[in-house]
């Protein structure tokens, strides 16, 4: 985590980073005050997001240099397993995963998929690093206990942290002048995504 928190892109993002990784949604989840319906809304919307991220990463991978293949394809396989994991939870909770995508989540995924086609690889690497680093940092602030322990552990474990560290290294290796701009763009989407789940 330390290596991520002190990375060039995180430091340059300043307050945006802090806003994206410290949502009131997760604070409420940690202290037990989150409404179960809010959690269920988040689960459905995050499933839609994971589907969109899979598309982004798949297209990005098709344009990646050889050295990125192992990391990105490993990430894709993990995403596929995550979708199945979401589906199991949705079934257990009786949630409909084909319910409409919230406009805020849609904006985020539209941004990602458009970027998969129009941005150079260095920018895409920064985008993917931002998505996963913000997620890791947000969940790592919580201790894996209570009713949501399985969720917290899933996105704060050492294997996920190592994946994110390697994504950071990939972005660092393929620097591009617009990396910071897009890193920050992702953080704004992350911030809005957490708020969306809280609000509606």
């Amino acid at each position, binding site marked *: 985590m330390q290596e991520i928190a002190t990375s060039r892109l995180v430091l340059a993002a300043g307050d945006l980073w802090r806003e994206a990784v410290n949502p009131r949604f997760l604070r409420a989840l940690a202290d037990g005050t989150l409404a179960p319906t809010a959690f269920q809304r988040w689960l459905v919307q995050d499933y839609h997001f994971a589907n969109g991220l899979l598309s982004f990463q798949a297209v990005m991978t098709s344009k990646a240099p050889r050295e990125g293949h192992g990391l990105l394809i490993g990430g894709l396989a993990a995403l596929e397993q995550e979708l199945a994991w979401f589906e199991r939870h949705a079934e257990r909770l009786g949630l409909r995963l084909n319910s409409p995508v919230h406009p805020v989540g*849609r904006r985020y995924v539209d941004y990602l998929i458009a970027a998969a086609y129009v941005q150079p690889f260095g920018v895409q690497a920064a985008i993917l690093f931002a998505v996963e680093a913000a997620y890791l940092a947000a969940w790592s602030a919580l201790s894996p206990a209570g009713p949501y322990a399985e969720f917290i552990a899933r996105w704060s474990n050492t294997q996920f942290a190592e994946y994110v560290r390697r994504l950071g290294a990939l972005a660092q290796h393929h620097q591009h002048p617009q990396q910071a701009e897009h890193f920050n763009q992702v953080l704004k989407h992350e911030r809005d995504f957490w708020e969306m789940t809280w609000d509606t």
Partner: protein
Amino acid sequence: MRLHEKLWLENADLVAACEAHPFVRGLMAGTLQRDAFRRYVAQDAFFLRAFVRAYALALARSPAAEQAEELHAFIGGALEELRLHRRYAAELGIDLNTVEPLPAASAYVNFLMRSAWHAGLGETLAALTPCMRLYAHLGQVAASACRPGHPYGAWIETYADPQFAALAARVEALLDAVADDEPAVHDAYRYALLCEHDFFSAPLELSS
């Protein structure tokens, strides 16, 4: 009923919301603040460049020569609109090269780019059509209230022009030809209208 008619009718609520939007009402009445109009023109030029690219991507994906000819004409129409925007921009003192997109414009452009690059031809046309039909509709509504010396008379004339309505009808005919009556097409059409609505809000939000 043809698909484009069905789509237009089932989204009458969003069309009415656009028609009643303070930005649109102000523009029609001529009471819209000049600064809000300046911001709108700048954002619209940014949007139109994406519109041209989306048409071009649809063209690249068109299997039939007649469809390619239609899309070629639509690209020409959008480029003509861009030329008009450049003229407005020059009159209003806006440098279109330095325009930063507002979130509403970015969202709309990303949606168009996602559709055009990633989705099928039918969905792409469903994303592109509402803008054309909505503007032809608003132009016609505005024309009835337009008087000589209206501060936004030139804008109204552009979209009230029967040629613009004819172009919108050709886009709709292509939509009917290439799109299936499926949820993704309905969804893209409706979301594009929602983007239109938010696009009108953006220049006002910034001034408040």
